[in-house]
């Protein structure tokens, strides 16, 4: 069991009802974590739409993570 800090943005944060939370999980990759959280928060965006960051750096969906990591899930960017 790993404990991580999750960061959510934009509609993911709005749908989750929070921008940040602690999360305990047994899964090993970010994409598995996303599936778990998508169900938990009834997110409407699919995996191919989101981007991940691990400890403030972009990372791939199949990246693993460690206990204590800060993990971000981001919807499509819309700056500019």
């Amino acid at each position, binding site marked *: 069991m790993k404990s991580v800090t999750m960061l959510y*943005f934009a*509609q993911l*944060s*709005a749908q989750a009802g929070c921008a940040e939370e602690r999360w305990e999980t047994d899964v090993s990759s970010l994409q598995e974590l996303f599936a778990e959280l998508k169900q938990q928060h009834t997110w409407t965006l699919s995996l191919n739409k989101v981007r991940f960051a691990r400890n*403030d750096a*972009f990372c791939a969906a199949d990246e693993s993570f460690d206990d204590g990591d800060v993990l971000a899930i981001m*919807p499509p960017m819309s700056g*500019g």
Partner: protein
Amino acid sequence: MFTLSHKAIAVEPLRQSLLRLDAGGFCSFEGWVRNHHLGRGVERLEYEAYAKLALTQGAAVLDAAQEQFDLLGVRAEHRIGELVPGELAVWVGVCSVHRDQAFEACRFIIDEIKATVPIWKHEFYTDRSNEWVDPTACHCDHRHVAETEVQT
């Protein structure tokens, strides 16, 4: 240098930071908040950023432009927080010896900022609905479909 600003972007200091005696061409792009989007009236919007990653990714975009083009200076700033139509959302400026490289790099930078820097636009419409803009949900050039929440 890529920066985020919670206050109105001041164009002139940004521009002046790029002045150089050996540069011959300067190109800037500004994204302005429009009062309409896909046929709906826009009353205001909010830009949210993943600030730490936005700063490193914004810097990476400018570094990539300097590698790819022959530039003498680059600078970009993105506004964060609440904006109304007419306000400046993003400023990009590039100077080079010749204009070709300035134009191309400026275009490259704004395209990359929009696509890769973690900033999100929350539009609030005059009909009281609001929407997190999703450029990837385009059905064509100018039509978006995304989650719309009607304010209660």
